[in-house]
């Protein structure tokens, strides 16, 4: 049998684990603990910091002052997660079921943006979304939008940026899950009268797609309720045509672990992100990441900054736990692999 140490077999796994695990204990676990300690500090970088439990006021100060930024981060990250789901699911589904021999090429194209700099990609959106850029320029030329219309420096730009940057994090886990769906089950469902074309499936699809499109409309076209309603209508129609009963009853439920993993892999980095808000937003779109970064690196206010980031970590833990209770899956650590 393939063992490395015959006499003391039990040592082998620990010997293999030790260096990597130690590294994580020293540079992940201990710093997190140290950050918790630092959130009870008072003092300054020049004079040194002192620890006291009375400094729990760091937390009250952090939350009192920055509740809007926390809330904004949750809303932006949530909206971006819903959008990545809407964009990624059909993409992952098509690659998995219709990709054929181009599957690997398509998957490669999905991750290709990662081979350029994250910062440069975000700055690219600044060029694309610019007031007279390649997107708005032609539309304004045609007179379809007023001259002073802008996307840049709005919440829309920030949410679009986050959506774009984290799209592969949703696409890959969903792809892995959809790819695993045994197509014979779908065929069995069809044989049992779950039509690709039955009102049940169509209505369910229209409701789901319409509802999600409404979210999209509200987030993206908030000042124009008609646009939102239009988006819902179009989403409903698309759902009616594309979403079959077998999809709603078989494929989609079976792919839920991928959706679960994907939404966590999108939501968690999105809620802590500050690069999109900084490059594409304005002072009113500042997220909690911007505040933490500023407090740590510009103001050197370590105690409050630590309280802020510890609160962020706790908030994520709570949100993720609630989400896991609702969607309930134990495969969290295994389906997320890409």
């Amino acid at each position, binding site marked *: 049998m*393939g063992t490395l140490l015959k006499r003391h077999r039990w040592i*082998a*796994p*620990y010997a293999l*684990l030790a*260096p*990597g*695990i130690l*590294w994580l204990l020293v*540079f*992940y676990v201990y*710093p997190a603990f*140290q*950050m918790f300690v630092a959130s009870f500090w008072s003092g300054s970088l020049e004079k*040194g*910091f002192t620890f006291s439990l009375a400094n729990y006021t760091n937390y009250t100060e952090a939350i009192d002052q920055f509740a809007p930024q926390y809330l904004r981060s949750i809303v932006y990250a949530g909206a971006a997660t819903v959008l990545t789901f809407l964009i990624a699911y059909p993409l992952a589904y*098509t*690659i998995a*079921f*219709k990709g*054929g*021999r181009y599957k690997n090429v398509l998957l*490669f*194209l*999905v991750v290709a*943006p*990662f*081979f*350029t*700099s994250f910062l*440069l*990609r975000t*700055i*690219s*959106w600044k060029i694309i979304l610019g007031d007279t850029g390649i997107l708005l320029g032609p539309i304004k030329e045609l007179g379809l939008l007023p001259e002073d219309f802008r996307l840049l420096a709005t919440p829309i730009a920030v949410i679009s940026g986050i959506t774009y940057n984290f*799209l592969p994090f949703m696409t890959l886990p969903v792809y892995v899950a959809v*790819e*695993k769906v*045994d*197509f*014979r089950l779908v*065929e069995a469902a*069809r044989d049992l009268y779950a*039509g690709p*074309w039955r009102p049940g499936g169509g209505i369910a699809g229209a409701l789901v797609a319409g509802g999600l499109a409404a979210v999209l409309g509200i987030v993206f076209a908030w000042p124009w309720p008609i646009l939102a309603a239009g988006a819902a209508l179009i989403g409903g129609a698309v759902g009616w*045509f594309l979403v*079959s009963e077998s999809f709603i009853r078989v494929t989609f439920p079976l792919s839920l672990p991928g959706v679960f993993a994907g939404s966590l892999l999108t939501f*968690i*980095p999105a*809620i802590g992100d*500050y*690069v999109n808000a900084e*490059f594409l937003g304005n002072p009113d779109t500042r997220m909690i990441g911007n505040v*933490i*970064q500023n407090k740590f690196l510009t103001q050197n206010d370590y105690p409050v900054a630590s309280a802020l*980031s510890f609160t962020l970590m706790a908030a*994520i833990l709570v949100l993720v736990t609630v989400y896991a209770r609702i969607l309930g899956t134990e495969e*969290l*650590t295994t389906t997320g*692999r890409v």
Partner: protein
Amino acid sequence: MAPVDGAVAAPGAGRASARRRPGGAAVGRLARLADRYLLLVYTGLAVIYLLLPVAVIILFSFNDPAGKSNFVWQGFTLKYWLNPLGVAGLGDAVWLSLALAFLSTIIATILGTLVALALVRYSFRGRGAANSLIFLPMATPEIVLGASLLTMFVSIGSPPFFPLNFFTILLAHIMFNISYVVVTVRARLAGFPRHLEEAAMDLFANEWQTFWKVTFPLILPGIIAAALLAFSLSIDDFVITNFTAGKTQTFPMFIYAKARIGIPVQVNVIGTLIFVIAVGSVAVTTLAQRRSRSG
């Protein structure tokens, strides 16, 4: 798992009998067309959306901007391509990023591969805890990872505190890379043909020989994939680096610093080069693997 290819998956083709609703023929045909082409068209659009910013980066590396900011297309030029490091500090930042990515990849790949071997090969007390510890850094926002490392470095010693430099960035990069390496190599190990190792042992290979002549060549593609992932994560990392770098400037930090005053065109040139090299190396490894598999 049944293989699902395009032919089986297209429900319209050859499965018309599945439609049971009389009178729905026209609608059914429309649905079939939609099913056939709409998703493909959509996928094409999605790929364009994904690659649009990359195209903009490449395009603007040939731009000849009027002022300092490279936001508006002015005209085609090759002059920045002929002088890609012609901005103060850019060359140093690029070399620093390459050195960081190189070192952190080597160390994280070794540590992560060992962990993956332990997790897949052995059942032992504490395996669940080890799995969670591997998963957690990937589930923590980068800003929290960076911030906690910074508080740790600050808490070491009294003022002037622990110096932040190349070394502290390297420690951080190895930390976040380990998890990704473990996950990638573990995926490869999970379907590993154990009987090949047993055959080697039966043929009097000792454990050392078995590992290097059988196990290692088989998991090598997984290790290479992990190393490529680690390298690309490290060379592109901004947030964690920003917290652990002090005054040291990596390539992403150079971009960030220049973003306020206008990004030099050379940055786009370097970005394009990195993209081309990365895509090329992935293509080469994939082709090499395919050839060795078929040959």
